[in-house]
C-alpha cells in the first residue's frame, strides 16, 4: 500500500533531500528548485491514510532562497531551532527556523555536494562540507568561517558523514573511488583509506586502496557507529568495520546506482536486525545490514528515488523522488483496509509484519 503525501503546493520540482528532526515531528525537504519545505509528521487524524501538512516553506519569493538545487538539508542536531542547507549555488546557509531567515552564509568556490554536522558532538560545531574540489572543508558555526581543510582526495567529494559514536571522526567519500576516515584533530592526514580487498596495510599502499570500483556516492554509519555502509557507482554496497577499516565482505548483490551526485540512503534504528534502505531506481530496496539479505523492494514512486530518511520514533521511512512526491512508508501491522471510509475492525495480524512495509494514503 502506498501513501502519497501531497508534497507541496507548488509541487513543480522534486524534493531532493529529506531530513527528519531529532525531536520527532518535523521533516525538512529540499528540492531541486531551491525551495525548502518543513512538514509536520505527526498523524493526528487517526486514520491509516493521511497526508502530512507543510508547515512552512522557503519559497522562490524568499530573498535568501537558494538559487539552484538544494543538495543537503540537516537540522541542527540538538534542537529544531536551526537548520542548515547546502546547494549547487556554492553556498551553505544556516537558517533560523522560527523566523525563516538566514543566520549565516558560507560561500565556497565550487558547488557543494554534501554537508553534515556531527549528531553527537558537544565539543565542536563543525560542519563538514564536500564540494566539487578535492578538499573537505570544515566550517565552524561559532566563528562563522572555515576553520580547517582536509586534504587527501583527488576528485570531488560526494558524501561526508560524522561518526555517531565519536566526536571527531569523519568519513568522506569521493569520486576517485576512495573513502577516507579522518580524525579532524590530527594534522597529518587521514586515519584510514578503506580498501575493498582487505590487503596489507602499509603507508605506501594507501594511495592504491579503493573502496569501490567507481565513484563512491553515499555514506551511512549504522546507528551505533561501529559499521559504515558505502554505495558506489559500481553497483555495490559495502559494509565496513569503522574501527579498523576492514571490509566485512557482506555482499548485498547488485545495488543499482546511476546517480551522478550523492545518493542519500539510510539505516533503520531500533529494529532487532537493522535494515538499510537504499534507493534503487524508482524503488527502495531493503536489506538486512549484517547478513546482506534482500528483504523487499518498496515500489511506489514513478521516477528515480533520490533520498530516503528513517524516523526511529515513528519507525517510518520517508522517501523523495524525482516525481515530486515524498512518500511515507510505515510498517503494516494489519492487513491493509481497502476502504477508507471508517476505521473498521482490524483484520488479523500479518504474521510477517516486520517485513511488510506499507504506506498510508489519504486525501486529508
Amino acid at each position, binding site marked *: 500500500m502506498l501513501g502519497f503525501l501531497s508534497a507541496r503546493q507548488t509541487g513543480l520540482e522534486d524534493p531532493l533531500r529529506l531530513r527528519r528532526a531529532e525531536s520527532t515531528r518535523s521533516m525538512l525537504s529540499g528540492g531541486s528548485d531551491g525551495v525548502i519545505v518543513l512538514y509536520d509528521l505527526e498523524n493526528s487524524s487517526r486514520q491509516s491514510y493521511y497526508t502530512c501538512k507543510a508547515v512552512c516553506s522557503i519559497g522562490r519569493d524568499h530573498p535568501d532562497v537558494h538559487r539552484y538545487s538544494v543538495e543537503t538539508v540537516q537540522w541542527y542536531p540538538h534542537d529544531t531551532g536551526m537548520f542548515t542547507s547546502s546547494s549547487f549555488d556554492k553556498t551553505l546557509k544556516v537558517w533560523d527556523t522560527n523566523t525563516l531567515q538566514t543566520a549565516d552564509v558560507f560561500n565556497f568556490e565550487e558547488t557543494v555536494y554534501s554537508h553534515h554536522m556531527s549528531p553527537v558532538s558537544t565539543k565542536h560545531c563543525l560542519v563538514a562540507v564536500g564540494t566539487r574540489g578535492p578538499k573537505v572543508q570544515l566550517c565552524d558555526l561559532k566563528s562563522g568561517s572555515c576553520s580547517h581543510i582536509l586534504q587527501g582526495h583527488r576528485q570531488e567529494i560526494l558524501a561526508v558523514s560524522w561518526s555517531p559514536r565519536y566526536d571527531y571522526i569523519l568519513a568522506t567519500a569521493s569520486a576517485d573511488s576512495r573513502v577516507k576516515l579522518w580524525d579532524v584533530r590530527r594534522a597529518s592526514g587521514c586515519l584510514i583509506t578503506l580498501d575493498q*580487498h582487505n*590487503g*596489507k596495510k*602499509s603507508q*605506501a*599502499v594507501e*594511495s*592504491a586502496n579503493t573502496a569501490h*570500483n567507481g565513484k563512491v556516492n553515499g555514506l551511512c554509519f549504522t546507528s551505533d557507529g561501529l559499521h559504515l555502509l558505502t554505495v558506489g557507482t*559500481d553497483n*555495490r554496497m559495502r559494509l565496513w568495520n569503522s574501527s579498523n577499516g576492514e571490509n566485512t*565482505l*557482506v*555482499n*548485498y*548483490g*547488485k545495488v*543499482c546506482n*546511476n546517480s551522478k551526485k550523492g545518493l542519500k540512503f539510510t539505516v533503520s534504528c531500533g529494529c532487532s536486525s537493522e535494515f538499510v534502505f537504499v534507493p534503487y*531506481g524508482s524503488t527502495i*530496496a531493503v536489506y538486512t545490514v549484517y*547478513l*546482506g*539479505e*534482500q*528483504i*523487499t*523492494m518498496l515500489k511506489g514512486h514513478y521516477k528515480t528515488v533520490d533520498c530516503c530518511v528513517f524516523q526511529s520514533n515513528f519507525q517510518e521511512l520517508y522517501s523523495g523522488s524525482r516525481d515530486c512526491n515524498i512518500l511515507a512508508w510505515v510498517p503494516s501491522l494489519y492487513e491493509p483496509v481497502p476502504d477508507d471510509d471508517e476505521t473498521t475492525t482490524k483484520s488479523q495480524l*500479518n*504474521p*510477517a509484519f516486520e*517485513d*511488510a512495509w506499507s504506506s498510508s494514503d489519504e486525501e486529508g
Partner: protein
Amino acid sequence: MQSFSDSGGQTPPGAGEVCALRRRLIPTWPPAPLNTAHESTGVRALGGSQSAVGVGPGPADVLRVSASPPPLPTLTGLRDDKLTPSSSSPGLGGTPGESVRHCSAPEDPIFRFSSLHSYLFPGTIKSRDMSRKRHHLVPETFGVKRRRKRGLVESDPLRGEPGSARAAVSELMQLFPRGLFEDALPPIVLRSQVYSLVPDRTVADRQLKELQEQREIRIVQLGFDLDAHGIIFTEDYRTRVLKACDGRPYAGAVQKFLASVLPACGDLSFQQDQMTQTFGFRDSEITHLVNAGVLTVRDAGSWWLAVPGAGRFIKYFVKGRQAVLGMVRKSKYRELLLSELLGRRAPAVVRLGLTYHVHDLIGAQLVDCISTTSGTLLRLPET
C-alpha cells in the same frame, strides 16, 4: 540439461533444517549436473529399473520396522523438473518467512539401501504417478522437505559440503574448456559463477576468502572489469606458469616469485616495498615478472597478480558473454527459459560453452532468474 534456480533470499545451506537423515539408494546414479542447492524438489532417478519409488509406499511402515532411530526415507526416484514457483525471489515481494525453502543439508550416506529395500518391498516398482502422489503425502506428514541430490558429494564427501564455495569451484572447473587453450592456461572460474551456485553471497565471499588464506586458490584480477575476479587453484597456477616460462630469460625470477611470494602472500596485489624489502626482489626482477605476465601494473609501485596468457581467455570470455546476453536480449519480451537457452546452438563466438557463460550471467545479476512452472526463466532487468 541443467536446472538453475533463483538465488535470491535463500537461507544459507545447512541452516537449521530439522530434517532427517537421508537414505541414499545406491551409488549408481548419474553424476549430478550443476544443480543449485535449493528450490527444486527434484530428485534423481536411480539408474536401472530400480526406481526408488519402492521406498514410497509406506515410509511409515519403514519406521515401524526398523528399530533404531528410523531414518526418514528420502523420496527419491523422481526427477522433478518442475520448480515450484517460489515466492522468495527478490522483487516479487511477499513474506519471505512463509515461502517453502529447500535448503540443502550435508548429506551423509547413512544407509546403502538396496538389499534392505528389496527385502522390505519386493516387487514394488510402482508407476510414476502413484509414487508421486505418495511422495507428496509424506513430506506433509513428517514435515520433511524434499531435497535435491547432490551427486558431487559422492565424489568428495570429505571436503566441500554441498552448497559450499569449494564444491562450487570444483564443479565449475569441470566446465572450463582446457582443450581450447592447449592446456597452457590453468582452468579459471569466475567469482560470479560461484554466486550462481552458492546462493548466499556473503557466505560465498567469506568461504572464498578462507580458501584464499589457506592458499588453496588464488584470486586474480581479470582485466576487463574491476569486479570480475578469476579463481584458480594454486597448484594449477603454479604448474602452468612454470611450464610457460620454461627456458625463457625470466624463468629464474618467476621461479623465485612462485617459491617465495605466492605461499606467503595470498592477496590480489603486491606493493613495491613488499616486493623489495620483504621478499628481496630487485627492480630488474620485477620487470622480468611483468614481462612474463605474472604481474600486471596496477598503480605506481603496485601490481596485480595475473595469469600469463590469459588474454585469449579474456577475449573469448568478453565476446561470449556479450553473445549469450544478446541471445536473451533478442528474444521476444527479452526473456528466455533456461532450458531453451541451453538447448540452442551456441553462436560461433561462444568458445567457452553456454553453461559457463550462463553461470556467470546469473551470478553477476546481468539477468534476473525467475522460477516459473516451466523451469527457470532468464529475463533482462529493466534498468
